[in-house]
């Protein structure tokens, strides 16, 4: 594999990581901490929304984020011929 192939692969990988980490930050530090009070005005069943993100929602999103990353990277590995 050529060096430019490796560089293109790395660039796409970094883009994925940055997008996923932005979501990681928004659900936990955003919804669960910084904007908790605003979101707490909204209530779904017995949960205030900010409280729910802090103690439930962020964790669900974390799990989903990793599995999205696994899928994206498996595809990317194939595209650049790094799968095995």
């Amino acid at each position: 594999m050529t060096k430019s192939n490796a560089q293109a692969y790395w660039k796409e990988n970094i883009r994925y990581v940055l997008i996923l980490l932005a979501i990681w930050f928004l659900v936990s530090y955003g919804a669960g901490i910084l904007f908790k009070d605003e979101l707490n005005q909204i209530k779904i069943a017995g949960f205030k929304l900010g409280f729910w993100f802090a103690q439930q929602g962020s964790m669900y999103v974390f799990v989903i984020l990793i599995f999205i990353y696994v899928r994206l990277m498996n595809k990317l590995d194939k595209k650049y011929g790094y799968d095995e």
Partner: protein
Amino acid sequence: MSSMIVLEGIGVQKWTYIMVGLTFAIYIGIAIWSRASSTKDFYVAGGGVSPLANGMATAADWMSAASFISMAGIISFAGYDGAVYLMGWTGGYVLLALLLAPYLRKFGKFTVPDFIGDRYYSKTARLVAVFCALLVSFTYVAGQMRGVGIVFSRFLEVDINTGVIIGMIIVLFYAVLGGMKGITYTQVAQYCVLIFAFMVPAIFISIQMTGNPIPQLGFGSQLADGSGTYLLDKLDGLSTQLGFAEYTEGSKSMIDVFAITLALMVGTAGLPHVIVRFFTVKRVRDARKSAGIALLLIAILYTTAPAVAVFARTNLIETVSDKPYANVPDWFTKWETTGLITFTDKNNDGNIQYLADNNKNELVVDRDIMVLANPEIARLPNWVIALVAAGGLAAALSTAAGLLLVISASVSHDLIKKIINPKISDKGELVAARLSAVGAVCVAGYFGINPPGFVAAVVALAFGLAAASFFPAIILGIFYKRMNKEGAIAGMVVGIVSMLLYMIKYKLGWFDETLPDKSEWWFGISPEGFGTVAMLLNFVVSITIMKFTSPPPEEVQDIVEKIRIPSGAGEATGH
């Protein structure tokens, strides 16, 4: 029908003996079946563990006595603020999966100091890393042994010290015999035990209180009594009535919640006993996948814990608040004898006043007993109570074993093989690894029996240290090709030292006559959250020093290019 009556008749203690004996027999059986025959078996389980098995083992390794026994209790007293542990101890896995695990697996060595030493082409860097790994792991393992002791003393009514010694012998047996291979497969069994033990009472109580069998939904539901009141609204009301902060609001400042969460997340991603798990799988893609599976399995417990916290808190207040002391239930008296519940009738009215105001409050409940006492408070059957005891032991033992392995690998591999005697044979190294595991168990047991008075402070310090030292060094090592040894070493040292100093000043209070007040904290950040600041300092120092020193040699830059490409990972090797 008649067998049901017989089962009802067996007491908690007998049930506990049955459950604990059965699970211990399983662990020992697995250990004998999966003995280690080479250093590779011992350090990384031969490198052929499937992603599912590794995910389960990682989950058991990660969920310690703190997660199983203490966390829900801490949350039930902290309310919203408990979210720092929930988000902090799960969010770190996103960082692990996206930023660390795949690359460290591709790098393909045995330990974290291996990576630091090779990437920064320096024995000094390796030594600093060994020091951090040992410090972090020892503080952690002492806490686990203590957890084992508490479970034994309360449920089997043996002396705490005897409990610690029994725990030591069990761990010694399978960690020394099986190494990483034995540990991995016992951890798979331990995960099953601990998750079953955590979920069964949670589901029971959720049905009891709200009619909803799923605890994650139950604590947001209406009460089962038909009043139409939501459980959380009721708890908010009860809390404010007694003078506590509203449960769903919490009382820590926003910046502190932010800093603690980040320190715990980054610390999680930097803990050597977690990172090393990703060396055991076959391919890079398996490392990513097993991080996902691990977090999924961890999240089952972590999303249930806040529900358990709400159930336990509500039940506790309703059972004891303003009730006559003469009529307290059996569990209350039993925990009183361990000293973990205390009642002093300050106004001599014979009733229990449980209030936020320290001058009027008559009841002190140790946060660590909430999960263990919860099934009794909710009057669940005896076998469920015994199951929780077995689950607590599974959680403590699995984490202790994983930590002991990191300690023994740090000594036999990083110190003896890589620094003191590089010519040692594989057989000799295996003997050294087993001997250092024995030594580590003894030291851990000593601290379990004679815990330093500041265990909680030291555990918080472990996360801070991991965040301040390993995390930046590894991230920069992977994502910044030009990072050199001068920058990395300076960064790690500044990170560790600043963390230690802040902790000593504001947590232990050794610099002043008395512990300094909260108002003196830098930017309002508590010692638990200072890992975030120390980590940032590490990054800044590393990059600044790097700018003024020479770039790493060509072959090191080639290593970095190579670990960024997932294919051709081969097998983990010690050479």
